[in-house]
């Protein structure tokens, strides 16, 4: 059975291909279009999935779209008429895109893929997330928490997942209806802090560590909790029906003060141990800490409900599962046997859910459910030879304008070292990392989801604040309040983090923030946040042998097999896809070394 899962139309368009229960290829469209969170039809992601598996469109048994456009349309229409007669611009903008494109998704899929409309199926938005989480977990049974801003008509759905005759049975046990949405509440506070809602929630999460939850009680008063883990939000503080105009309203501003001004957080620096928070900034970091605490409370409440009524295995997905600090709190709960968070828990991952569930819709069944777990390196891979050859033809003087205020202002040439043996290459790279170089690390097929897990990563040694700061300002161009993550070899994981966390699969995918053991704090201080936590990736040999070897080799020199690992991209761009994009970033930033498969390039 061959099924293609598709998600697009809101953000993070993606395609995934499953063959007989095995996920064989998956990619977000933005990797190919360089438009971060690209929501457009995933033409190139589909092309890649088919090419990778060497099949054509006519071989597909089903094409499954991740949500139900008619359901969603009724919600959009209802929301826009709710504020009548003050919602004309909302109505106009949404109707233009819905009536011309979004409502006719199935027609478009049928036309683009030249397949009969009967071969196009739809799942509910949250169900796609749940299918991704449950089928990919390999659990026999589980409780599934899906939290995001809003799906078709719901913001949170809790499911119970079981298997019957080799097919997944995923049933909703609790549904929280829009406009009650803690996801939207979190996004609204993100907007209050001056960031883009639905994109920069990670900033709110990062800033929370700088503050204290002083506004927690006041924020909690806006929520009425029910015993069955449902809740209602006091909508008089929000603008969820007219999100185009912003998620918060005058009443919210009156209660909590004016929204943050641009660049107010520039003084928050997690690489400066002597850093002091300014009073004006403190108000906003406290707001971030308060909403973070509220969100954590909710997620743990949902988990307790599942533990009490349904299962000790928990799967968690939806945009809310990208909050690794809340995931960390979840992982600390007593009584959880297994916790699974997919590599891409967001809308990109719902294409995976659609593809996997599509296999079963098309008649596939599987007795050994552990076989359905899928690896994370399912994106596209490239050969780098021709790209490197073209770099050698470039006159570095032509690049001066990009490097004029950097340490490479007088760049003379690129030194290319080609290795036939990966062991020698790893030895060289670990030496360069020890010598405080910023290394772009590009290997094989790319990771699915937003986290760089050792195939599209930028690496530095983990104990140097200055180097981390240079990485933030001269390479990544990102705010200093955002901490970095750490990759640690499975051999040394217990030295860095508590044994309790190591059992969770989420740590292989950098999805759970954990405290760092005191004895290791100094060794990894550049990837520890101000609250002494980090977001570790435990790399084992089976998952990524080359990266595992690099970590161990570096560990021989450094004393701990750990590296600071951040995604291979610049601010505003998605994770890089091809060697050419890696080269572009390498030549125009202060990255010192670029490793493209077995080729090492240095700036001289």
């Amino acid at each position, binding site marked *: 059975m061959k099924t293609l899962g598709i998600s697009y139309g809101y953000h993070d368009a993606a395609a995934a291909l499953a063959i007989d229960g095995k996920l064989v290829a998956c990619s977000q469209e933005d990797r190919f279009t*360089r438009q971060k969170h690209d929501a457009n039809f995933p033409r190139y992601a589909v092309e890649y999935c088919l090419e990778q598996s060497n099949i054509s469109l006519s071989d597909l048994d089903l094409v499954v779209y991740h949500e139900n456009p008619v359901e969603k349309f009724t919600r959009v229409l209802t929301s826009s*008429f709710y504020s009548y007669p003050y919602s004309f611009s909302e109505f106009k903008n949404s109707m233009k895109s819905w009536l011309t494109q979004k409502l006719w998704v199935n027609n478009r899929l049928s036309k683009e893929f030249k397949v009969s409309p009967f071969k196009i199926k739809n799942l509910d938005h949250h169900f796609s997330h749940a299918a991704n989480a449950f089928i990919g977990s390999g659990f026999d049974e589980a409780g599934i928490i899906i939290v995001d801003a809003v799906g078709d008509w719901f913001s949170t759905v809790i499911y119970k997942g079981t298997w019957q005759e080799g097919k997944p049975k995923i049933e909703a046990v609790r549904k929280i209806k829009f406009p009650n949405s803690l996801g939207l509440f979190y996004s609204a506070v993100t907007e209050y802090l001056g960031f883009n809602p639905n994109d920069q929630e990670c900033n709110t999460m990062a800033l929370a560590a700088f503050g204290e939850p002083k506004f927690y009680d006041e924020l909690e008063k806006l929520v009425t909790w029910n015993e069955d883990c449902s809740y209602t939000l006091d909508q008089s503080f929000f603008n969820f029906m007219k999100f185009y105009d912003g998620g918060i309203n005058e009443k919210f501003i009156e209660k909590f003060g004016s929204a943050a001004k641009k660049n107010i957080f520039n003084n928050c620096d997690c690489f400066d141990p002597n850093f002091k928070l300014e009073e004006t900034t403190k108000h906003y970091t406290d707001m971030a800490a308060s909403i973070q605490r509220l969100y954590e409370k909710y997620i743990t409440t949902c988990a307790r409900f599942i533990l009490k009524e349904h299962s000790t295995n928990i799967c968690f997905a939806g945009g809310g599962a990208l909050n690794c600090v809340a995931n960390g709190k979840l992982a600390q709960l007593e009584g959880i046997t297994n916790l699974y968070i997919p590599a891409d828990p967001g809308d990109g991952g719902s294409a995976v859910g659609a593809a996997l569930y599509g296999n079963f819709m098309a008649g596939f069944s599987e007795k050994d459910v552990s076989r359905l777990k899928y690896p994370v390196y399912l994106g596209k891979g490239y050969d780098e030879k021709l790209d490197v050859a073209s770099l050698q033809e470039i006159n570095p003087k032509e690049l001066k304008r990009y490097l004029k205020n950097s340490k490479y202002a007088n760049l003379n040439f690129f030194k290319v070292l080609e290795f036939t043996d990966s062991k020698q290459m790893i030895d060289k790279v670990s030496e360069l990392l020890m010598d405080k170089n910023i290394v772009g690390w590009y290997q094989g097929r790319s990771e699915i989801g937003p986290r760089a897990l050792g195939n599209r990563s930028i690496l530095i040694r983990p104990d140097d604040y200055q180097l981390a700061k240079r990485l933030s300002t001269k390479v990544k161009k990102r705010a200093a309040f955002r901490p970095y993550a750490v990759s640690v070899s499975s051999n040394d994981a217990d030295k860095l983090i508590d044994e309790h966390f190591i059992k969770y699969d989420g740590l292989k995918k950098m999805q759970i923030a954990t405290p760092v053991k005191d004895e290791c704090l100094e060794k990894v201080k550049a990837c520890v946040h101000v609250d002494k936590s980090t977001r570790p990736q435990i790399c084992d040999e089976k998952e990524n042998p080359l990266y595992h070897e690099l970590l161990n080799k570096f560990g021989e020199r450094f004393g701990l097999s750990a590296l600071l690992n951040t995604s291979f991209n610049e601010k505003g761009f998605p994770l890089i896809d091809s060697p050419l994009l890696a080269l572009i970033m390498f030549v125009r930033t202060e990255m010192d070394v670029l490793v493209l498969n077995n080729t090492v390039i240095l700036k001289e």
Partner: protein
Amino acid sequence: MTSLFNLIRYLKVKLVVNTLWRWSPKSYLRSISLFSATESDTVWQLIHAFYMIENPKHRAEIFTQILEEDFHAKQFEDLINITEHADNYKVPFEEKKFLYSKEDPVWKLLAYCYIGEKDAADKFKDIMACSHNPDLKRTLAKIIHDETSHVGQANSILYELGAKPSEIKIELWRIRLIRKYESLVRNTKRIFEVIVDALLAIIYFTMGLLVSFKAKSIILDRKNS
């Protein structure tokens, strides 16, 4: 004929820069965002061209051009980023589609880029002549300088890639016609959008009152459940 087109373009630019941009900063920022998006699209098309060429020398030339175009996109973006809530003014991402297929010779794509560069340079020159914004003028001056040199560079690659002069000439004319047609479609679409807006306004304000009662009851029911 060409000079008539140039005159019309200049007058259009003057009208936009001196009236629309002056009175509506939002419109100015949206236009700048559109310029940035156009430069980014050129980058994207060139990335495609890069992988269609095998000669490392030509690839290197495309590589440096990609860097420059990306730099231009960033320069335009910086003009927007200095404002509060800059992201509100950025144009949404368009659906990407390669201009030429894998089967087409790569010089055709480069010819398209060449015409695009030339048109952009001409348009930016007109804006520079009309604008009183020093930041914008500074940015445009840099970009015009680069674009002009790209035109010469692209022209020489076309010949090096083995295209015959007559073929290039025909292709350039074809592209110019396509671009004129595309511009016509864009303008027609804008007029059509005004009509659609008017129709939607009629629907909203006439039927809205009735529908809004139903919408309110649905949402109230959901709020409290």
